[in-house]
Protein backbone atom coordinates (compact mmCIF):
# COMPACT_ATOMS: atom_id res chain seq x y z
CA UNK A 1 0.00 0.00 0.00
CA UNK A 2 1.48 3.28 -1.03
CA UNK A 3 1.79 6.19 1.39
CA UNK A 4 2.52 9.88 0.99
CA UNK A 5 6.08 9.20 2.20
CA UNK A 6 7.01 6.81 -0.60
CA UNK A 7 9.67 8.00 -3.00
CA UNK A 8 10.92 10.94 -0.95
CA UNK A 9 14.69 11.00 -1.10
CA UNK A 10 17.44 13.32 0.13
CA UNK A 11 17.29 16.54 2.01
CA UNK A 12 15.68 18.37 -0.91
CA UNK A 13 12.95 15.76 -1.19
CA UNK A 14 12.11 16.07 2.50
CA UNK A 15 12.34 19.86 2.37
CA UNK A 16 9.81 19.94 -0.47
CA UNK A 17 7.50 17.62 1.43
CA UNK A 18 7.73 19.77 4.55
CA UNK A 19 6.97 22.93 2.55
CA UNK A 20 3.88 21.24 1.19
CA UNK A 21 2.75 20.21 4.70
CA UNK A 22 3.42 23.67 6.13
CA UNK A 23 1.32 25.19 3.35
CA UNK A 24 -1.58 22.92 4.26
CA UNK A 25 -1.19 23.67 7.96
CA UNK A 26 -1.22 27.42 7.35
CA UNK A 27 -4.30 27.08 5.15
CA UNK A 28 -6.29 25.45 7.94
CA UNK A 29 -9.34 27.66 8.50
CA UNK A 30 -10.05 29.23 11.88
CA UNK A 31 -12.23 26.83 13.91
CA UNK A 32 -11.17 23.95 11.69
CA UNK A 33 -12.87 20.67 12.37
CA UNK A 34 -11.07 18.72 15.11
CA UNK A 35 -10.53 15.76 12.79
CA UNK A 36 -8.71 18.03 10.31
CA UNK A 37 -6.40 19.24 13.06
CA UNK A 38 -5.81 15.68 14.34
CA UNK A 39 -4.94 14.53 10.82
CA UNK A 40 -2.48 17.40 10.33
CA UNK A 41 -0.90 16.60 13.70
CA UNK A 42 -0.55 12.96 12.62
CA UNK A 43 1.10 13.88 9.29
CA UNK A 44 3.58 16.31 10.87
CA UNK A 45 4.45 13.67 13.47
CA UNK A 46 4.96 11.04 10.76
CA UNK A 47 7.18 13.44 8.84
CA UNK A 48 9.55 13.59 11.82
CA UNK A 49 9.47 9.83 12.34
CA UNK A 50 10.11 8.99 8.67
CA UNK A 51 12.50 11.69 7.51
CA UNK A 52 15.97 10.20 6.97
CA UNK A 53 18.91 10.26 7.44
CA UNK A 54 19.30 11.95 10.80
CA UNK A 55 21.69 14.54 9.42
CA UNK A 56 21.81 18.12 10.71
CA UNK A 57 19.78 19.30 7.73
CA UNK A 58 17.07 16.72 8.33
CA UNK A 59 17.03 17.40 12.07
CA UNK A 60 16.54 21.06 11.26
CA UNK A 61 13.54 20.16 9.08
CA UNK A 62 12.22 17.99 11.92
CA UNK A 63 12.43 20.92 14.33
CA UNK A 64 10.39 23.07 11.92
CA UNK A 65 7.84 20.27 11.53
CA UNK A 66 7.58 19.91 15.31
CA UNK A 67 6.99 23.64 15.80
CA UNK A 68 4.24 23.50 13.15
CA UNK A 69 2.70 20.42 14.76
CA UNK A 70 2.61 22.04 18.20
CA UNK A 71 1.07 25.19 16.68
CA UNK A 72 -1.69 23.16 15.01
CA UNK A 73 -2.64 21.66 18.39
CA UNK A 74 -2.31 24.92 20.32
CA UNK A 75 -4.48 26.82 17.83
CA UNK A 76 -7.14 24.11 18.16
CA UNK A 77 -7.13 24.35 21.95
CA UNK A 78 -7.13 28.17 21.93
CA UNK A 79 -10.07 28.32 19.54
CA UNK A 80 -12.07 26.04 21.80
CA UNK A 81 -11.18 27.99 24.95
CA UNK A 82 -12.35 31.16 23.18
CA UNK A 83 -15.60 29.37 22.31
CA UNK A 84 -16.13 28.55 25.98
CA UNK A 85 -15.43 32.16 27.01
CA UNK A 86 -18.02 33.47 24.53
CA UNK A 87 -20.83 31.54 26.20
CA UNK A 88 -20.01 32.34 29.82
CA UNK A 89 -21.90 35.63 30.20
CA UNK A 90 -25.17 34.25 28.81
CA UNK A 91 -24.84 31.14 30.98
CA UNK A 92 -24.36 33.26 34.11
CA UNK A 93 -27.41 35.38 33.18
CA UNK A 94 -29.72 32.39 32.68
CA UNK A 95 -28.39 30.73 35.84
CA UNK A 96 -29.28 33.86 37.81
CA UNK A 97 -32.83 33.72 36.42
CA UNK A 98 -33.12 30.08 37.43
CA UNK A 99 -31.92 30.84 40.96
CA UNK A 100 -34.61 33.53 41.25
CA UNK A 101 -37.22 30.91 40.32
CA UNK A 102 -35.73 28.52 42.87
CA UNK A 103 -35.89 31.18 45.60
CA UNK A 104 -39.53 31.84 44.81
CA UNK A 105 -40.29 28.09 44.92
CA UNK A 106 -38.48 27.75 48.25
CA UNK A 107 -40.62 30.55 49.72
CA UNK A 108 -43.75 28.80 48.43
CA UNK A 109 -42.58 25.51 49.96
CA UNK A 110 -42.07 27.20 53.33
CA UNK A 111 -45.58 28.60 53.13
CA UNK A 112 -46.96 25.16 52.18
CA UNK A 113 -45.21 23.71 55.24
CA UNK A 114 -46.93 26.31 57.49
CA UNK A 115 -43.47 27.29 58.75
CA UNK A 116 -44.61 30.78 59.66
CA UNK A 117 -47.60 29.53 61.62
CA UNK A 118 -45.35 27.00 63.36
CA UNK A 119 -42.88 29.70 64.31
CA UNK A 120 -45.64 32.08 65.49
CA UNK A 121 -47.13 29.38 67.71
CA UNK A 122 -43.70 28.49 69.07
CA UNK A 123 -42.88 32.14 69.66
CA UNK A 124 -46.20 32.78 71.42
CA UNK A 125 -45.71 29.72 73.60
CA UNK A 126 -42.22 30.89 74.58
CA UNK A 127 -43.60 34.35 75.38
CA UNK A 128 -46.23 33.01 77.67
CA UNK A 129 -43.77 30.70 79.42
CA UNK A 130 -41.42 33.63 80.00
CA UNK A 131 -44.23 35.76 81.41
CA UNK A 132 -45.10 32.93 83.78
CA UNK A 133 -41.48 32.62 84.86
CA UNK A 134 -41.44 36.34 85.50
CA UNK A 135 -44.56 36.18 87.60
CA UNK A 136 -43.00 33.37 89.65
CA UNK A 137 -39.84 35.46 90.09
CA UNK A 138 -41.84 38.44 91.33
CA UNK A 139 -43.13 36.29 94.12
CA UNK A 140 -39.83 35.25 95.59
CA UNK A 141 -36.55 35.73 93.79
CA UNK A 142 -33.79 38.26 94.02
CA UNK A 143 -33.73 41.47 91.96
CA UNK A 144 -30.90 40.27 89.68
CA UNK A 145 -32.92 37.38 88.56
CA UNK A 146 -35.84 39.68 87.85
CA UNK A 147 -33.68 41.82 85.55
CA UNK A 148 -32.42 38.83 83.66
CA UNK A 149 -35.89 37.43 83.17
CA UNK A 150 -37.22 40.84 82.10
CA UNK A 151 -34.51 41.00 79.45
CA UNK A 152 -35.45 37.56 78.26
CA UNK A 153 -39.09 38.57 78.13
CA UNK A 154 -38.29 41.62 76.00
CA UNK A 155 -36.24 39.51 73.59
CA UNK A 156 -38.98 36.93 73.29
CA UNK A 157 -41.61 39.59 72.67
CA UNK A 158 -39.41 41.18 70.01
CA UNK A 159 -38.99 37.82 68.31
CA UNK A 160 -42.70 37.24 68.41
CA UNK A 161 -43.45 40.70 66.97
CA UNK A 162 -40.94 40.25 64.14
CA UNK A 163 -42.42 36.83 63.37
CA UNK A 164 -45.91 38.29 63.11
CA UNK A 165 -44.80 41.39 61.17
CA UNK A 166 -42.64 39.49 58.69
CA UNK A 167 -44.32 39.31 55.26
CA UNK A 168 -45.32 35.80 54.14
Amino acid at each position, binding site marked *: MSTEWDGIEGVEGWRAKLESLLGEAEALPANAN*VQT*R*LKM*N*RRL*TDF*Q*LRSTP*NSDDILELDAIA*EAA*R*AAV*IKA*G*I*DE*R*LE*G*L*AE*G*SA*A*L*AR*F*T*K*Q*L*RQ*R*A*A*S*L*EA*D*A*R*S*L*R*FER*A*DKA*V*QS*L*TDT*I*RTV*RDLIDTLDAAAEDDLVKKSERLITTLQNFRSEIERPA
Partner: protein
Amino acid sequence: MNRLLRALPHRWRILRCLLLALAVPLPTGCGALPDASALVDSAWSIHAAVRSAGAAVEAELRRYEEDGEAARRFAGEWAVRIDSVKGIAEYAGAVQGVVEASGRTRERIAALAGGISGLAGAAGIAMPPAGIVAVTTEAAGIVLEQVNRIRAAKSLEEAMGPAQEAVGFICARIAADLRTTDEIVQLLEADARSRLQLRWGDEQAYRQQIEEARRAVFRLGAPALEPANQARLRELDDLLAATGERHTLYEDALRAVEERTRSIREVIAAAAGAVEAWPSAHAQLRAAIASGRSLNIAAAMSTVVEIRDLVQRMRDL
Protein backbone atom coordinates in the same frame (compact mmCIF):
# COMPACT_ATOMS: atom_id res chain seq x y z
CA MET B 1 -81.36 7.84 57.11
CA ASN B 2 -81.33 10.77 59.50
CA ARG B 3 -81.50 8.36 62.43
CA LEU B 4 -78.61 6.45 60.97
CA LEU B 5 -76.63 9.64 60.59
CA ARG B 6 -77.37 10.63 64.16
CA ALA B 7 -76.08 7.26 65.28
CA LEU B 8 -72.70 7.94 63.69
CA PRO B 9 -70.07 9.26 66.03
CA HIS B 10 -69.80 13.02 65.88
CA ARG B 11 -66.31 12.99 64.29
CA TRP B 12 -67.41 10.79 61.41
CA ARG B 13 -70.36 13.08 60.69
CA ILE B 14 -67.98 16.04 60.36
CA LEU B 15 -65.67 14.03 58.15
CA ARG B 16 -68.56 12.89 55.97
CA CYS B 17 -69.69 16.49 55.40
CA LEU B 18 -66.17 17.49 54.49
CA LEU B 19 -65.70 14.59 52.09
CA LEU B 20 -68.99 15.46 50.37
CA ALA B 21 -67.84 19.03 50.05
CA LEU B 22 -64.56 17.84 48.58
CA ALA B 23 -66.37 15.66 46.03
CA VAL B 24 -67.07 18.87 44.09
CA PRO B 25 -64.48 18.92 41.28
CA LEU B 26 -61.58 21.19 42.02
CA PRO B 27 -60.01 23.20 39.22
CA THR B 28 -56.64 21.47 39.09
CA GLY B 29 -54.03 19.51 40.95
CA CYS B 30 -56.31 17.30 43.07
CA GLY B 31 -54.12 14.20 42.68
CA ALA B 32 -50.70 13.85 44.28
CA LEU B 33 -48.13 15.89 42.40
CA PRO B 34 -45.60 13.88 40.33
CA ASP B 35 -42.34 13.08 42.10
CA ALA B 36 -39.46 15.20 40.86
CA SER B 37 -36.69 13.44 42.81
CA ALA B 38 -35.32 11.71 39.66
CA LEU B 39 -34.84 15.17 38.14
CA VAL B 40 -32.93 16.28 41.25
CA ASP B 41 -30.72 13.14 41.29
CA SER B 42 -29.98 13.52 37.60
CA ALA B 43 -29.03 17.20 37.99
CA TRP B 44 -26.66 16.46 40.88
CA SER B 45 -25.05 13.55 38.98
CA ILE B 46 -24.53 15.85 35.98
CA HIS B 47 -23.01 18.40 38.37
CA ALA B 48 -20.59 15.76 39.72
CA ALA B 49 -19.66 14.68 36.18
CA VAL B 50 -19.15 18.25 34.91
CA ARG B 51 -17.02 19.11 37.95
CA SER B 52 -14.91 15.93 37.82
CA ALA B 53 -14.45 16.00 34.04
CA GLY B 54 -13.46 19.66 34.30
CA ALA B 55 -10.85 18.90 36.96
CA ALA B 56 -9.46 16.03 34.85
CA VAL B 57 -9.26 18.21 31.71
CA GLU B 58 -7.54 20.94 33.72
CA ALA B 59 -4.97 18.37 34.91
CA GLU B 60 -4.39 17.25 31.29
CA LEU B 61 -3.90 20.88 30.23
CA ARG B 62 -1.30 21.30 33.00
CA ARG B 63 0.53 18.25 31.63
CA TYR B 64 0.37 19.75 28.15
CA GLU B 65 1.68 23.21 28.92
CA GLU B 66 4.24 23.99 31.61
CA ASP B 67 3.17 27.57 32.28
CA GLY B 68 -0.39 26.42 32.95
CA GLU B 69 -1.95 29.32 31.04
CA ALA B 70 -4.43 27.17 29.08
CA ALA B 71 -5.32 25.27 32.27
CA ARG B 72 -6.05 28.54 34.09
CA ARG B 73 -8.21 29.83 31.23
CA PHE B 74 -10.12 26.57 31.07
CA ALA B 75 -10.65 26.44 34.85
CA GLY B 76 -12.01 29.99 34.86
CA GLU B 77 -14.52 29.29 32.10
CA TRP B 78 -15.44 25.86 33.42
CA ALA B 79 -16.28 27.26 36.86
CA VAL B 80 -19.20 29.09 35.17
CA ARG B 81 -20.45 25.73 33.80
CA ILE B 82 -20.17 24.04 37.20
CA ASP B 83 -22.12 26.89 38.78
CA SER B 84 -24.80 26.71 36.07
CA VAL B 85 -25.34 22.99 36.60
CA LYS B 86 -25.41 23.61 40.36
CA GLY B 87 -28.08 26.25 39.69
CA ILE B 88 -30.11 23.65 37.78
CA ALA B 89 -29.75 21.14 40.63
CA GLU B 90 -30.78 23.74 43.22
CA TYR B 91 -33.77 24.72 41.10
CA ALA B 92 -34.75 21.02 40.74
CA GLY B 93 -34.42 20.68 44.52
CA ALA B 94 -36.75 23.67 44.98
CA VAL B 95 -39.29 22.07 42.60
CA GLN B 96 -39.12 18.83 44.60
CA GLY B 97 -39.36 20.87 47.83
CA VAL B 98 -42.75 22.22 46.72
CA VAL B 99 -43.89 18.73 45.67
CA GLU B 100 -42.88 17.31 49.07
CA ALA B 101 -44.36 20.22 51.02
CA SER B 102 -47.72 19.69 49.31
CA GLY B 103 -47.66 15.97 50.02
CA ARG B 104 -47.23 16.12 53.82
CA THR B 105 -49.94 18.59 54.72
CA ARG B 106 -51.78 16.29 57.13
CA GLU B 107 -48.64 15.54 59.15
CA ARG B 108 -47.86 19.24 59.37
CA ILE B 109 -51.39 20.16 60.41
CA ALA B 110 -51.14 17.49 63.14
CA ALA B 111 -47.81 18.96 64.28
CA LEU B 112 -49.26 22.48 64.24
CA ALA B 113 -52.26 21.29 66.26
CA GLY B 114 -49.82 19.80 68.77
CA GLY B 115 -48.10 23.16 68.99
CA ILE B 116 -51.42 24.96 69.51
CA SER B 117 -52.34 22.51 72.29
CA GLY B 118 -48.99 23.25 73.91
CA LEU B 119 -49.65 26.96 73.57
CA ALA B 120 -53.10 26.61 75.10
CA GLY B 121 -51.60 24.57 77.93
CA ALA B 122 -48.97 27.23 78.59
CA ALA B 123 -51.57 29.98 78.53
CA GLY B 124 -53.91 28.00 80.76
CA ILE B 125 -56.63 27.96 78.12
CA ALA B 126 -58.95 24.97 78.33
CA MET B 127 -58.88 23.02 75.08
CA PRO B 128 -61.93 21.13 73.78
CA PRO B 129 -61.95 17.40 74.54
CA ALA B 130 -59.23 15.40 72.77
CA GLY B 131 -61.73 13.72 70.42
CA ILE B 132 -63.03 17.05 69.15
CA VAL B 133 -59.49 18.35 68.67
CA ALA B 134 -58.54 15.19 66.77
CA VAL B 135 -61.50 15.31 64.44
CA THR B 136 -61.05 19.04 63.81
CA THR B 137 -57.37 18.49 63.07
CA GLU B 138 -58.14 15.61 60.74
CA ALA B 139 -60.81 17.61 58.94
CA ALA B 140 -58.52 20.61 58.62
CA GLY B 141 -55.83 18.26 57.31
CA ILE B 142 -58.08 16.92 54.58
CA VAL B 143 -59.21 20.36 53.44
CA LEU B 144 -55.79 21.94 53.61
CA GLU B 145 -54.24 18.97 51.82
CA GLN B 146 -56.39 19.74 48.78
CA VAL B 147 -55.82 23.46 49.11
CA ASN B 148 -52.07 22.94 49.41
CA ARG B 149 -51.96 20.71 46.33
CA ILE B 150 -53.71 23.37 44.29
CA ARG B 151 -51.41 26.05 45.69
CA ALA B 152 -48.35 23.86 44.99
CA ALA B 153 -49.46 23.08 41.42
CA LYS B 154 -50.06 26.81 40.80
CA SER B 155 -46.69 27.71 42.29
CA LEU B 156 -44.92 25.09 40.14
CA GLU B 157 -46.71 26.13 36.97
CA GLU B 158 -45.82 29.77 37.58
CA ALA B 159 -42.16 28.92 38.14
CA MET B 160 -41.59 26.06 35.69
CA GLY B 161 -43.19 27.74 32.67
CA PRO B 162 -40.86 30.74 32.58
CA ALA B 163 -37.95 28.55 33.77
CA GLN B 164 -38.20 26.29 30.71
CA GLU B 165 -36.36 28.80 28.53
CA ALA B 166 -33.49 29.14 31.03
CA VAL B 167 -33.33 25.36 31.51
CA GLY B 168 -33.30 24.81 27.74
CA PHE B 169 -30.60 27.41 27.15
CA ILE B 170 -28.34 26.25 29.99
CA CYS B 171 -28.62 22.55 29.10
CA ALA B 172 -28.03 23.14 25.37
CA ARG B 173 -25.03 25.33 26.12
CA ILE B 174 -23.54 22.88 28.64
CA ALA B 175 -24.00 19.99 26.17
CA ALA B 176 -22.26 22.02 23.44
CA ASP B 177 -19.47 23.00 25.85
CA LEU B 178 -19.01 19.36 26.85
CA ARG B 179 -18.58 18.51 23.16
CA THR B 180 -16.06 21.34 22.83
CA THR B 181 -14.22 20.00 25.87
CA ASP B 182 -14.25 16.52 24.35
CA GLU B 183 -12.47 18.00 21.33
CA ILE B 184 -9.89 19.63 23.63
CA VAL B 185 -9.28 16.18 25.16
CA GLN B 186 -8.85 14.66 21.68
CA LEU B 187 -6.30 17.35 20.80
CA LEU B 188 -4.46 16.80 24.11
CA GLU B 189 -4.39 13.05 23.57
CA ALA B 190 -3.02 13.47 20.04
CA ASP B 191 -0.37 15.86 21.32
CA ALA B 192 0.69 13.56 24.17
CA ARG B 193 0.79 10.57 21.82
CA SER B 194 2.90 12.48 19.26
CA ARG B 195 5.35 13.66 21.91
CA LEU B 196 5.79 10.10 23.20
CA GLN B 197 6.28 8.70 19.69
CA LEU B 198 8.83 11.38 18.86
CA ARG B 199 10.71 10.96 22.14
CA TRP B 200 10.93 7.19 21.69
CA GLY B 201 11.05 7.28 17.89
CA ASP B 202 14.67 6.16 17.37
CA GLU B 203 14.37 3.26 19.80
CA GLN B 204 11.11 2.14 18.26
CA ALA B 205 12.61 2.34 14.76
CA TYR B 206 15.54 0.19 15.89
CA ARG B 207 13.18 -2.39 17.36
CA GLN B 208 11.13 -2.44 14.15
CA GLN B 209 14.32 -3.14 12.18
CA ILE B 210 15.07 -6.13 14.43
CA GLU B 211 11.56 -7.47 13.95
CA GLU B 212 11.80 -6.98 10.20
CA ALA B 213 15.11 -8.89 10.16
CA ARG B 214 13.47 -11.80 12.03
CA ARG B 215 10.60 -11.89 9.55
CA ALA B 216 13.14 -11.91 6.71
CA VAL B 217 14.80 -15.03 8.15
CA PHE B 218 11.46 -16.82 8.49
CA ARG B 219 10.51 -15.88 4.94
CA LEU B 220 13.45 -18.01 3.77
CA GLY B 221 11.37 -21.13 4.41
CA ALA B 222 13.32 -24.37 5.00
CA PRO B 223 16.79 -22.68 4.95
CA ALA B 224 15.69 -20.80 8.06
CA LEU B 225 16.43 -24.01 9.95
CA GLU B 226 20.10 -23.99 8.88
CA PRO B 227 22.55 -23.43 11.76
CA ALA B 228 23.72 -20.02 10.51
CA ASN B 229 20.16 -18.71 10.27
CA GLN B 230 19.26 -20.22 13.65
CA ALA B 231 22.25 -18.42 15.16
CA ARG B 232 21.08 -15.20 13.47
CA LEU B 233 17.58 -15.67 14.94
CA ARG B 234 19.04 -16.18 18.44
CA GLU B 235 21.06 -13.02 18.01
CA LEU B 236 17.95 -11.08 16.93
CA ASP B 237 15.93 -12.52 19.83
CA ASP B 238 18.63 -11.35 22.26
CA LEU B 239 18.43 -7.85 20.76
CA LEU B 240 14.65 -7.86 21.10
CA ALA B 241 14.92 -8.97 24.73
CA ALA B 242 17.50 -6.24 25.40
CA THR B 243 15.15 -3.57 24.12
CA GLY B 244 12.08 -5.18 25.72
CA GLU B 245 12.18 -3.27 28.99
CA ARG B 246 12.39 0.12 27.25
CA HIS B 247 9.67 -0.93 24.83
CA THR B 248 7.40 -1.85 27.77
CA LEU B 249 8.00 1.56 29.34
CA TYR B 250 6.99 3.22 26.07
CA GLU B 251 3.86 1.09 25.69
CA ASP B 252 2.85 1.71 29.33
CA ALA B 253 3.19 5.46 28.82
CA LEU B 254 1.05 5.30 25.68
CA ARG B 255 -1.55 3.13 27.44
CA ALA B 256 -1.72 5.54 30.40
CA VAL B 257 -2.49 8.45 28.07
CA GLU B 258 -5.14 6.36 26.29
CA GLU B 259 -6.83 5.22 29.51
CA ARG B 260 -6.89 8.68 31.07
CA THR B 261 -8.33 10.39 28.02
CA ARG B 262 -10.80 7.58 27.30
CA SER B 263 -12.23 7.72 30.84
CA ILE B 264 -12.56 11.53 30.65
CA ARG B 265 -14.32 11.25 27.30
CA GLU B 266 -16.71 8.60 28.65
CA VAL B 267 -17.71 10.87 31.56
CA ILE B 268 -18.13 13.81 29.17
CA ALA B 269 -20.30 11.73 26.79
CA ALA B 270 -22.52 10.45 29.62
CA ALA B 271 -22.91 13.94 31.10
CA ALA B 272 -23.72 15.40 27.67
CA GLY B 273 -26.39 12.73 27.10
CA ALA B 274 -27.95 13.37 30.51
CA VAL B 275 -27.87 17.15 30.19
CA GLU B 276 -29.47 16.95 26.74
CA ALA B 277 -32.33 14.83 28.16
CA TRP B 278 -32.93 17.18 31.11
CA PRO B 279 -35.05 19.93 29.44
CA SER B 280 -37.37 17.29 27.98
CA ALA B 281 -37.84 15.65 31.41
CA HIS B 282 -38.46 19.10 32.90
CA ALA B 283 -41.08 19.84 30.23
CA GLN B 284 -42.75 16.45 30.83
CA LEU B 285 -42.91 17.12 34.57
CA ARG B 286 -44.35 20.58 33.97
CA ALA B 287 -47.02 19.18 31.62
CA ALA B 288 -47.90 16.44 34.12
CA ILE B 289 -48.32 18.99 36.91
CA ALA B 290 -50.48 21.22 34.68
CA SER B 291 -52.72 18.33 33.63
CA GLY B 292 -52.80 16.65 37.03
CA ARG B 293 -51.61 13.29 35.69
CA SER B 294 -48.92 11.08 37.16
CA LEU B 295 -45.49 10.72 35.58
CA ASN B 296 -42.46 8.51 36.06
CA ILE B 297 -39.39 10.35 34.84
CA ALA B 298 -37.00 7.96 36.59
CA ALA B 299 -36.59 5.93 33.39
CA ALA B 300 -35.76 9.04 31.38
CA MET B 301 -33.11 9.94 33.95
CA SER B 302 -31.60 6.45 34.16
CA THR B 303 -28.09 7.67 33.36
CA VAL B 304 -27.49 8.64 37.01
CA VAL B 305 -25.90 5.33 38.02
CA GLU B 306 -23.89 5.10 34.81
CA ILE B 307 -22.47 8.60 35.34
CA ARG B 308 -21.55 7.83 38.96
CA ASP B 309 -19.68 4.69 37.87
CA LEU B 310 -17.82 6.49 35.11
CA VAL B 311 -16.84 9.38 37.39
CA GLN B 312 -15.55 6.91 39.98
CA ARG B 313 -13.56 5.02 37.35
CA MET B 314 -12.02 8.25 36.09
CA ARG B 315 -11.07 9.30 39.62
CA ASP B 316 -9.47 5.90 40.25
CA LEU B 317 -7.04 6.32 37.33
